[in-house]
């Protein structure tokens, strides 16, 4: 397996959604290829960071009350 083939499969590898023989090929490739390990680590970091975005704590929110007033006008 070369780098392009490995990179193409890294999300599925992360999701544990590949056949065992493909998993073995990727594992073997990653043992000897630091650049691909780097890409896999980055994908892992993106996915784990995305998981904590769901609470939305850090987002800038518009004024809830003004939007409520707009909604009230639209409803009536």
């Amino acid at each position, binding site marked *: 397996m070369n780098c392009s083939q490995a990179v193409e499969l890294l999300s599925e590898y992360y999701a544990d959604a590949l056949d065992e023989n493909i998993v073995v090929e990727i594992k073997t490739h990653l043992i000897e290829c630091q650049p691909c390990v*780097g890409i896999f680590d980055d994908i892992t970091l993106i996915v784990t960071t995305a998981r904590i975005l769901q609470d939305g704590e850090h987002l800038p929110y518009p004024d809830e009350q003004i939007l409520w007033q707009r909604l009230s006008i639209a409803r009536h």
Partner: protein
Amino acid sequence: MATVADVETLEPAADSDVDLARRAAEGEDAAFEALYHRHFRRVYSLCLRMLGNPTEAEDLTQETFANLYRKVGSFRGDSQFTTWLHRMTVNQVLMHFRKRSVKMEKTTFEGETPIQIVKGTENANRMPVIDRIALESAIQQLAPGYRSVFVLHDVEGYEHEEISRMLGIAEGTSKSQLHKARLKLRDLIRKQAALN
């Protein structure tokens, strides 16, 4: 025989989502307003992430709650209210995309440079440690098709099978777009880090 305690657990708790939805459906404005304030942030944040534009997100939040006002009577309590409203929000955004003729499957990386790995150079370009703000900013720069799949899968936790149904795309396309979205995010974060 059911005890008082059993009956109490079967009844919706006062001011639960189910109770508020029932009362809102009966025309109680205060109940609808309580639902709005309870779920406003959740709906807005989902709209913002999928649209990548605060003004459009405000408009779609308003449209979603206007739609909720009309349809709250159809909530049967088969699923959690939050799940039901979440799906309603996603549908509202997708309808907006369709009006704007955003083609979910035609979003590609055409014209962009594919990842080229040169042995011994890649680690120098590793993505820096990222925080929420950096990732949010990168998400907003994704093309709509990639952004929708990434937000629905990696942020909101939907499975590819559900996403394919919602977006009207093949499950394989959902998987492929998710992977491309992750690689694109990595690229955007690295470029941003290089500018800082």
